């Protein structure tokens, strides 16, 4: 099922939670809305679900206007960050809820409901918990029950609000993989909200990066990581070294000294140079257009992370770089640095 969002505006008082947002979601996609808190991602999700209403704009689900219908008529599965399981019902009754509240004309008989609930509990691999209460489950189990409950109504689309946000790191990782394989099994068009870039890049087919109520970039995980469209995306996704530079006459200057890199069409003026930590070429002192003193080295896994104080006149700029283990770095060593891959964005006011 497809979802289309057009020119959505939502204000809370004078604060614009969503500022003219457009989004198209294709059939069977698993889309991530990624952004820092306050970027409007949850508001957008709630508007699609019918739990919030926009001040202006359109939402269509499968080409059909959604804003004319309340949440209970939209047939949208919603999974909450804090699960929102009905605490006074057993797991079984929680999952059965959506089937039991259907209008009498379409409601299934008890045997069909039981069979369907059993099937869903099997799907989330928790059939053995059917008679427990939510308070007796772990966080990961609760979230899987919440998902089974949302799927019970055979939703046209599935919306997940920070589905793993309240879980600890290890469970989160497991559930991520589980969600991805579940999606490839049932293929329902899904959107999930997260502030965790790793989660978004690992699970989603496409990632929508949001900031301050606007969409900054839409693309595949590879796209948003390798070709960030804006300074915000570059800074938000992956670790970046950010240096304030000056563009003049097609050349890039740092602290008055020219760097041996091209301005890539960025207009003259104050700009920002973004380099991934692992995209800094390390050489002996005197090579490269930057120079710095290694202050501190930590080694873990395949990399060593070094804190380098740049000799940029004042020596106050400290950056962190990742170097492969085969080039041993020593504290106190002076090294030359050259950005291998980089992006320059005009500085925003």
């Amino acid at each position, binding site marked *: 099922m497809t979802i289309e969002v057009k020119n959505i505006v939502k204000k809370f008082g004078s604060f614009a939670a969503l500022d003219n947002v457009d989004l198209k979601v294709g059939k069977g996609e698993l889309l991530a809305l990624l952004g820092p808190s306050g970027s409007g991602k949850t508001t957008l999700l709630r508007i699609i679900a019918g739990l919030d209403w926009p001040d202006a704009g359109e939402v269509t689900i499968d080409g059909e206007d959604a804003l004319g219908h309340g949440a209970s008529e939209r047939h949208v599965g*919603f999974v909450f960050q804090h699960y929102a399981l009905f605490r006074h019902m057993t797991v079984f009754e929680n999952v059965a809820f*959506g089937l039991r*509240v259907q209008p009498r004309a379409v409601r299934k008989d008890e045997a069909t409901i039981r069979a369907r609930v059993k099937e869903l509990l099997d799907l989330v691999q928790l059939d053995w918990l059917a008679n427990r209460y939510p308070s007796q489950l772990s*966080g990961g189990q609760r979230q899987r029950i919440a998902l089974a409950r949302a799927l019970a109504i055979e939703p046209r689309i599935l919306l997940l609000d920070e589905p793993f946000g309240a879980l600890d790191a290890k*469970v989160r990782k497991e559930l991520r993989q589980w969600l991805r394989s579940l999606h490839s099994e049932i293929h329902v068009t899904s959107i999930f909200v997260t502030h965790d870039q790793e989660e978004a890049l690992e699970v989603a087919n496409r990632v929508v990066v949001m900031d301050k109520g606007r969409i900054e970039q839409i693309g595949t995980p590879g796209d948003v990581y390798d070709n960030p469209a804006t300074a915000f995306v570059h800074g938000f996704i992956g670790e970046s070294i950010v240096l304030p530079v000056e563009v003049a006459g097609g050349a890039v200057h740092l602290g008055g000294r020219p760097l041996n890199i091209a301005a890539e069409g960025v207009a003259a003026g104050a700009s920002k140079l973004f380099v991934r930590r692992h995209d800094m070429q390390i050489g002996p002192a005197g090579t490269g257009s930057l120079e710095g003193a290694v202050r501190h080295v930590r080694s873990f896994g395949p990399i060593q992370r070094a804190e380098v104080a740049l000799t940029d006149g004042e020596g106050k700029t400290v950056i962190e770089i990742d170097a492969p283990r085969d080039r041993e770095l020593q504290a106190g060593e002076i090294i030359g640095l050259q950005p291998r891959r980089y992006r320059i964005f005009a500085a925003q006011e």
Partner: protein
Amino acid sequence: MSTQTSFVTPATSLRAYAATADLAMAPPAPRTAGDRARHAAASKDLRSEPGPIRFIIIALAVSFLTIFVVLPLVVVFASAFSKGIGAYLAALAEPEALSAIKLTLLVAAISVSLNLVFGVVAAWAIAKFDFPGKTFLITLIDLPFSVSPVISGLVFVLLFGAQGYWGAWLQANDIHILFAVPGIALATIFVTFPFVARSLIPLMQEQGTQEEEAAISLGASGLQTFFRVTLPNIKWGLLYGVLLCNARAMGEFGAVSVVSGHIRGETNTMPLLVEILYNEYQFVASFAIASLLAMLALITLVVKTVLEQRLDEAQIPKDDPSDH
């Protein structure tokens, strides 16, 4: 108890009082992490006091309670039965007594059921929605607690009395409110209004709106959501509020006294009859009625304790820190 800290009302201070009494006499098994911490702190503090001081403090508390609470209660029952059980039963079988009991039950039934509905609606509005004037509404709900009951009764005299705003119109249409059941019920409703709302607001605020949102997104209608999700979640808090509301409705004296008119056998509730009989030196009859009210109080206390346990259980935090 933690959820009620934002409000200090008779209902909450009663609970707080009950909690401290528990701690002083027989510490109950701690139920929540918070309770455990508080409990541990309290018992540690107690142990840090030298023995004699501890003894004096406990003795003081116990003797104070005995003199001001237990003794009066004993006196009520002793006086009621002073002429034997026959006289006691005879006093209760008097037509005036029976009429007072009936009237009290009727007024309590009316005011409790109406306040149940009003209280749930008010608590729902305050806990689940944001709207301008919300703070004002919360203050307004507390008004009956802060106004003297006599004034509360007087308000209805000013509204419905012969010289009141609507007095002439009511008289012209032969509608009796003052010195009749409607007036007594109105005054009681006014005085007991806060109990249900107050016991529900903190509970509903804590529970938030997510379960309701989940129900709606699963296709439930508003009514289905209320009866299948909201009501089961607040039932213990609701019963707690109803219990306190009922106790106050049956025991209310001041406001009812002003609007009742004291027509014997017609508009006297139990508390009013107790006073009348006492003033007429009918001590056995007076204390017999009083003993009924005292028993109501004792039953209320027991049920309240049970409900408080249920409430604490219903407030298990949603986010279990031991997620795995």
